[in-house]
C-alpha cells in the first residue's frame, strides 16, 4: 500500500528528488505509479459496482416509460397522501431533533453534571439499535392495550400507537444523534472565549446564544438538519412496526415502495424509490457542497 508514498503528490508543491538506494529511482517510481493506479482502479470499480451503477439503474427503470410512471404515481391520492405524510413527519422530527440536539450539545460541552459521560455515550445508541428493535420498544411502552403508558394516554384521548404520533416518535428516535454529532465537535473547538467576553460586556444568556454561539455553530446545525431530514424521510423498519401501515392513513413513502414491489407493481415501486433516492442524494450533495466553505 505504501508504495504510493514515493509517488509525487499531485497537488503538493514539488519536493526535492529523494535519494533512492541502488539508483533505481525511475523504476521504483514507475512501479509506485502502477500501484497507485491499481488502487485507484480497485476503489472506483468497487464503488461503481456497489453504489453507482445500481443507483443509475433505478433512475433508468423509473423513467423506463418516460414520465408516465411518476405521473401515474401522483395521480393516486393515497400515494400523494403517503408522500405528504412522509414529508410532514420528517419536518417535525427535524424540528424536534434540532431543538433537542442544540440544547443537549450545549449542555454536554459547556456544563458539568453527574451522569454526563453516560448520557453522552447513550446519545449514540439510536444509531446502533436495529430499527425493528426501535419499533418494538415503542410498541411495548405506548401501545393502547398493554403498554406501560399507552392505556393512560389513550384514556386521556391521545392515541399514540398506529397513528401519526408513533410514526413521528420512531422517526425522531432513529435520527436523534445526527445534529448532536455535528454540533458537539464544533462547540468544543470554538471554546468559550467569545462567550465570556460577551458576558463580561453584559450580554445575558439568550443574547450570548443568539449573537455568539448560534452563528458559530450555524453550519454544523444545518449539516445535522440535512442529515436528519435524509434519515427521517427514509426510515422504514421502525415505521413499519409502529405505523400499522394503513393505506391512505399511516402508510409512508418507504412503505409504499415495499407494498408496490410485493404487489408486482415494479414500475410504481421503482418510481417511488427513485423519488426517495433523489431526495437523499440531493441531501448528501448539499452537505458536501456546503461543507468546505465552512473550513475556509
Amino acid at each position, binding site marked *: 500500500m505504501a508504495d504510493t*508514498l514515493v509517488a509525487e503528490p499531485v497537488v503538493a508543491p514539488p519536493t526535492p528528488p*529523494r535519494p533512492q538506494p541502488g539508483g533505481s529511482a525511475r523504476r521504483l517510481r514507475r512501479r509506485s505509479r502502477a500501484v497507485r493506479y491499481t488502487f485507484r482502479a480497485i476503489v472506483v470499480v468497487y464503488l461503481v459496482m456497489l453504489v453507482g451503477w445500481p443507483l443509475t*439503474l433505478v433512475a433508468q427503470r423509473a423513467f423506463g416509460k418516460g414520465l408516465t410512471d411518476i405521473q401515474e404515481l401522483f395521480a393516486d391520492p393515497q400515494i400523494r397522501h403517503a408522500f405528504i405524510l412522509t414529508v410532514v413527519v420528517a419536518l417535525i422530527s427535524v424540528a424536534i431533533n434540532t431543538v433537542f440536539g442544540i440544547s443537549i450539545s450545549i449542555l454536554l460541552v459547556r*456544563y458539568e453534571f453527574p451522569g454526563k459521560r453516560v448520557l453522552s455515550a447513550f446519545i449514540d445508541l439510536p444509531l446502533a439499535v*436495529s430499527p425493528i*428493535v426501535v419499533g418494538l420498544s415503542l410498541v411495548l411502552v405506548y401501545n393502547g392495550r398493554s403498554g406501560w403508558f399507552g392505556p393512560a394516554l389513550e384514556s386521556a384521548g391521545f392515541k399514540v400507537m398506529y397513528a401519526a404520533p408513533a410514526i413521528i416518535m420512531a422517526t425522531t428516535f432513529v435520527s436523534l444523534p445526527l445534529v448532536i454529532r455535528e454540533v458537539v465537535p464544533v462547540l468544543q473547538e470554538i471554546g468559550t472565549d467569545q462567550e465570556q467576553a460577551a458576558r463580561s460586556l453584559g450580554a445575558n444568556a439568550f443574547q450570548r446564544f443568539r449573537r455568539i454561539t448560534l452563528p458559530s455553530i450555524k453550519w454544523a446545525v444545518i449539516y445535522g438538519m440535512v*442529515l436528519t431530514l*435524509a434519515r427521517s424521510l427514509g426510515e422504514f423498519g421502525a415505521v413499519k412496526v409502529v405505523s400499522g401501515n394503513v393505506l391512505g392513513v399511516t402508510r409512508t413513502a418507504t412503505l409504499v415502495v415495499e407494498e408496490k414491489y410485493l404487489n408486482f407493481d415494479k414500475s410504481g415501486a421503482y418510481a417511488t424509490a427513485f423519488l*426517495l433516492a433523489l431526495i437523499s442524494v440531493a441531501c448528501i450533495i448539499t452537505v458536501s457542497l456546503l461543507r468546505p466553505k465552512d473550513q475556509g
Partner: protein
Amino acid sequence: MTTAVTPTQAPAPPRRRGRRVREGQLTWASGVGLGISVMWFSLLVLIPLCAVVITASGAGWSGFWSSITNEQTLAAIKLTVGTAFAVTIVNVFMGTLIAWVLVRDNFFGKRALEVLIDIPFALPTVVAGLVLLSLYGNGSPVGVNIANNRSAVFVAYLFVTLPFVVRTVQPVLAELDREVEEASRSLGASSFTTFRRVVLPSLIPAIAAGATLSFARGVSEYGSLVLLSGNIPFQTEVTSVRILSSIENNNVVGAASVATILLVISLIVIVFVDIVQRRLARRG
C-alpha cells in the same frame, strides 16, 4: 461527507475545576433545559429500550433461553452475526484502501466518489434493497442473480456499512504527519514496512472504531433485506426479520428476547467505540 461516524463524542476539555469556577456549573435555566432534555430522551429512547429488556425477562430465564435457542431463531442469529463479521473484515480492507485513495490520491471524479460513499448512509434502506436488486436481481444486466440467496444478505450488508470504516479512517489519515513516513523511507524502510510500522499503528484505533460501527450496522440491518433476500427461514432470514415476524405473530416475549440480544450487541459497540474515541482524543 457526514461526520456521523467520525470520533466526535470526545470529552470536553477537562473542566473538573469547574467546582470553583462559575463556568460549567448548571444555572437555573440550564438545569431546567437539562431536565427537559433528559426527560424527552428517557421517554423516547431509554424507557422503551428498558421495556424491551424487562419484557424479555418477564418469562424468566428459561423462557428467554428457549426463545433464543429456538432452532429458527438460532439460525437467524448465526447468519446475521456471521455475515456481519465477514462484511466487517471486507470493510476493514476496502474501507482503509478507499480512505487511502481519497486522502493520498487526486484524480478527476474524486468528489463524485466522496458522494457515492455517503449515499448508503442517506438512502432509505428499502430503496437500497431495490437499488441492489436492479443490478444483482432477476434480469440483472451483469447476469448475476443473488435475490433470495445468502449472498444477497452479504451484498446488502456491504452496501449499508460502506461509509463507516472510510469515514472514521479518513480524517485520521489526513492528519498524519507525512514527514515521519518520509523519514522512515529515507532510512531505507520499504514502502510496505513504512505502512506497517509507521502508518498502520496510528490508524488502528480508527479502523477498530469503524469496524465496530459497521458490525453493529450490519447486525441491526432490516430494510434493505426485505425485498432482496426473500427472508427464507433457515436460509436468508436475519435476526431483525425474525423479530418482526414474532411481533406479527403476537409473540411479544419472544420478540423482546431476541431484541435483547441485539440490544446487548449495540451496547457493547457503543461502549467500545466510546473508549476508543476517548483514547484517540487524549492522543490528539
